[in-house]
């Protein structure tokens, strides 16, 4: 063995020994893992008591309702006392059932205001509360239990998916559909044209991946009852953007779909990257040519 590898082995043994000492001390301190908080998921199978408890937690926590309302003796009175709402609900709007009224009051609070209170409550399915329908129903269950009324509200499978799924950081699908003109012909969430099929629940029929492909190549299929060849092919739309639209539509149909992130920013980036690489290479070549010429001149 050469001197060199002997030195190397000695030094390496020293490095490993030092590092092991540190790792050993790391084992001496208390050892525990900390796990992220469990998410409470409300499903159609959630028992009633749990639904009520979840509703109470939402109302006090995420919903921020107690900023204006009170659900016990002490509390704020900017909004109506929540202990009475369930009892009075049936009488508020003629022809409307108590449960339906409570849901409407949460989702579209401005539609029917209780006398004496200003128009100030934010719709609960939008930020800041940002409830899903299932969460709205949990709150209603809690309100019904508060008023002593029978808890009648039932969570349906469709409520579980948050309508806002698409509004996350990654999903810009809704804005893209408006920008790209899709809703000129298609109806989504009740808005848009009638030329093409309603896309709100389209993902129940087709995989999101297929939707992204169909945007680029409409010839893939045509929904019965609609004319083939009307939809313009958009292969020029970046892959990432098409995936975003697919993810948005998937969210509307209650499915989770995450664009791979494959191309989203990268398809644009690819072109820019190419330009940068080309510019630097050409510039360097020019300099190289100049240096060469200069050298030749000097030699001569």
């Amino acid at each position, binding site marked *: 063995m050469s*001197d*060199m590898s002997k*030195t*190397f082995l*000695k*030094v*390496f043994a*020293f*490095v490993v020994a*030092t*590092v*092991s000492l*540190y*790792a050993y*001390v*790391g*084992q001496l*301190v*208390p*050892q*525990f*893992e*900390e*796990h*992220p908080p469990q998410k409470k998921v409300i499903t159609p199978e959630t028992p009633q008591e749990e639904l009520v408890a979840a509703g109470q937690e939402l109302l006090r926590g995420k919903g921020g309702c107690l900023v204006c309302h009170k659900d016990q003796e002490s509390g704020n009175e900017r909004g109506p006392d929540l202990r009475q709402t369930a009892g009075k609900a049936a009488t508020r709007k003629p022809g409307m059932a108590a449960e339906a009224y409570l849901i409407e009051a949460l989702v579209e609070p401005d539609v029917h205001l209780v006398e004496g209170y200003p128009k100030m409550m934010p719709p609960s399915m939008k*930020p*800041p509360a940002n409830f899903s329908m299932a969460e709205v129903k949990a709150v209603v269950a809690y309100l019904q239990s508060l008023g002593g009324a029978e808890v009648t509200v039932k969570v349906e499978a469709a409520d579980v998916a948050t309508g806002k799924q698409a*509004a*996350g*950081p*990654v999903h810009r699908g809704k804005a893209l559909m408006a920008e790209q003109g899709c809703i000129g012909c298609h109806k989504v969430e009740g808005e848009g044209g009638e030329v093409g099929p309603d896309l709100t629940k389209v993902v129940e029929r087709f995989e*999101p*991946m297929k939707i992204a492909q169909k945007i680029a190549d409409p010839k893939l299929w045509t929904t019965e009852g609609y004319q083939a060849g009307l939809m313009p092919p958009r292969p020029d739309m970046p*892959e990432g953007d098409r995936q975003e639209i697919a993810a948005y539509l998937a969210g509307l149909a209650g499915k989770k*779909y*995450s*664009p*791979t*992130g*494959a*191309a*989203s*920013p*990268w398809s644009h*980036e*690819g072109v*820019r*990257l190419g330009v*940068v*690489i080309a510019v*630097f*290479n050409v510039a*360097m*070549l020019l*300099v*190289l040519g100049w*240096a*060469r010429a*200069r*050298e030749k001149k000097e030699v001569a």
Partner: protein
Amino acid sequence: MTQATTPSAFQAVKGTYKGVVKISLMLTATYLIAQALSSILPAADYRSLFGFSNRTAVWIVAELHLMFAAFVLGVPIFAFITEIVGVATKERRYDDLAREFTKLLAMAYTLTAVLGCVLLVLFIVLYPKLTGYLSGLFKPTWLLYIVLIFGEVIVAYLYWYTWDLLQGARKKWHLLLGLLVNLWGTALLFVADIWVTFMMSPAGIDDANNLVSLWDAINNHTWMPINIHRLLANVAFGGAIVAAYAAVRFLNAKSDEEKARFDWMGYVGSFIAIAAFIPLPFAGYWLGREIYQFSEQMGVSMMGGSFAWLWILQAMLIGGLFLASNFYLWLGMGRIPGGERYNKFQIGMMIVLTVGFIVWATPRSIIASGAEMAAMGGSHHPFLGLFGVMAAKNTAVNLMILTTFFSFMLYRRGNRIPTVSWATTGKIVQALAIAAAAAVVVGYGIYSYFVPSITRIGFSVYQVSAVLAAMAVFVAIDIPLLKGAKEIGAIRWGQIPARAQYALFFLAVSFTWLMGLMGYIRSGIRQYWHVYGRIMDESANAYTMTHGHATIIVSVIVVIFFLLVSAVFAMATRYDSPPNPRPVGGGDGSSAADAASMSLAAASLGRPGGSGGAQVEAKG
């Protein structure tokens, strides 16, 4: 020193162009591989690496990339300074030393770049959703980053290839290149830090996480503190690695001349490391403060929660660094004629260092059995409890800094006897300055037990200022004092026991491990968030692992790093024809440096991960 041929401008440009071509190819390959994998693999928010934890994979690659990047960004800073020193003193050995530094750099670039590219692919493949979000948010900075990479590749390679070409009257152009390399490197670091710090302390986005202000997102709470912290740490880290390289070369040296050369290089490297290390705690304090300001919750989980245990590890590492650097200086005194005059101070200094270390390592939360707790009368020991608090630890560390500084000043004086007429007065003033600083530090340390915490926090500033002031006074007197001093004899470079070189390895390993540990804490305090408080980590790896597990991963990373570094330096050594330390000319250029070129570029590419990476994974 004989120079076969001085390379022409054409050759320098050609070498640089090779670097540009390599980085172009690397970037293209990275892009294509990432694209191909993204479209082949089924859609997912998270993917695992053939069953291996995606978090650990990204963590290891990111940390390795970060370490190499720290090296290639830190070394040019002091290579450039050394070169200026060489010009100012007209001493050739400084120029040679700067060139030696730069050679290491050129070698490390390739690996940095490769690691960066791998990291980027891992990010896109293993964390597609998060990567998609972040890259969308910071689109403009990515492009800037690529442009900066090319700029860095070009200036860094020109800096290296034109070293011999731009000598003499043309040296100023070479210095300009050195300045540019550093400006570019710093810009790269700042851009890369945007991504990491945004994940720690997001700003500039609305409730739905859409971008509102790009500048706010960039200039978030922790961006500047991290920039400064990393800049200093890079220099310290680079110095330590360079010293370790010199130590290996010293141990392998065949001739006395070679020994002397690498002994000196090791000394300079360790000096740079320690000098850059001293202000680091202040930068760290600023960072900690900004973290508290951004979120007290995050600050508390960093200092007071389960992560508190890791700070004890940190105390141990830093205490070890102090001991090792004093050990190295004292052994170095042995090669200075006249150095033995100062041996008498060593026992006192060692007592201060050991007691300081002991105070510093006293845990705040004492581990005790039931019987012991009963004997202590609670979980607090009435006497040890006094050492567990910050007031005692600040005092201890300030005294340790002061002692180490004093050690270094004695080393400087080693073989010299002042001849100026006021020498005695000067020495007395110096001694008084040190004593006054020590008195202020201890005085405030004791006083702080009697005042409320809000006042106490301010005291650490006075303590630090006293130490800094004493240092300034000491140096201000020392320079004129030693002017024209009588030399007892020349420093016998190369005559130092081999165990001193192991102190240099210890410094390098400890710095590296410390960097890995601090990186884990920075990343770990995000807990189960990708972007703190905004985007949750929903993968199976979102949990915070045990400290034992984390320290093992950090250790594995450090061992891999040293293996890679050895491989890189072994290559550098191979092209270093032994008798002639300056093998300029054709050979050098095309092989060793070549490889280097490639790396630089890459270095940059990967950076996003560097920072981001560590966090993604670690955090959970």
